[in-house]
């Protein structure tokens, strides 16, 4: 285990494993950011016009951003449900506010 990850990140490791069978069932994700948009965004931020991005790299960046965004939501929910994002009995139908994002943002940015 990486020692620099604090308790919250470690708490989430088992819950992420719980999610794995569900992911495999779905296999093909319904919602994802289109690779064309990712390619445009990355090109927009590059400083050197000569730099190109390979198709496989664009796809991987898309996966990276997908993980980043879903992780943000899961951590925000986890924060409100005492470390278990799947505990639907507690805080069922809760509203995610900007403050929830503010609380998890620093650690999220360190982990990504």
């Amino acid at each position, binding site marked *: 285990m*990486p020692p*620099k990850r604090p308790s919250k990140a470690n708490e989430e*490791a088992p819950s*992420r494993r719980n999610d794995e069978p569900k992911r495999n069932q779905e296999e093909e994700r*319904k*919602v*994802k*950011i*289109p690779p064309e*948009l990712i390619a*445009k*965004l*990355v090109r*927009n*931020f*590059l*400083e*050197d016009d*000569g*730099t*190109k*991005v*390979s198709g*496989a*790299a664009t*796809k*991987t*960046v898309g*996966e*990276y*951003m*997908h*993980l*980043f*965004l*879903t992780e*943000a*939501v*899961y951590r*925000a*929910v986890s924060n409100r449900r005492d470390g278990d*994002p*799947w505990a*639907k009995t507690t*805080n*069922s*139908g*809760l*509203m*995610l*506010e*900007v403050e*929830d*994002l*503010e609380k998890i*943002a620093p650690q*999220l*940015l360190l*982990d*990504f």
Partner: protein
Amino acid sequence: MKAANASTRYTPRSETTSFQNTTIVRTVAMSASDTEQERLKSALWYHVGKLVDEACMDLNVNATPQFIGSLTELAWVQLDNIAKDLENFAKHANRSTVSTADVLLLARKNPDLHGLLQKVVDDEAAERAAKAAGKSRR
């Protein structure tokens, strides 16, 4: 839906114009790239909204439009950072094209993330190899 509302709510900043000729030219050039940035951000906002809705459905929660907006801003800054990192990684390896190896280098500090991305890269490579093999057989 909620995501669509959030993306339409996003309005570009008002443009300032001047009577001096040179300033006008510069303002127009600036606003052209500004508008492009706003359009890209709106597109990102829309897709972040869809993604958040999907995740929220699984967890039986709701997200406020403000949450989606802030998350979009966070993703925007993160993309800015990683794009510049990727460019520098590629340059360091004397390449002008960003490859999957550069993206994997992004996740070097997070073994879990690295593993997940490695899987995507491997799947992609296997898919390409299968496609190439199928073509050569025919």
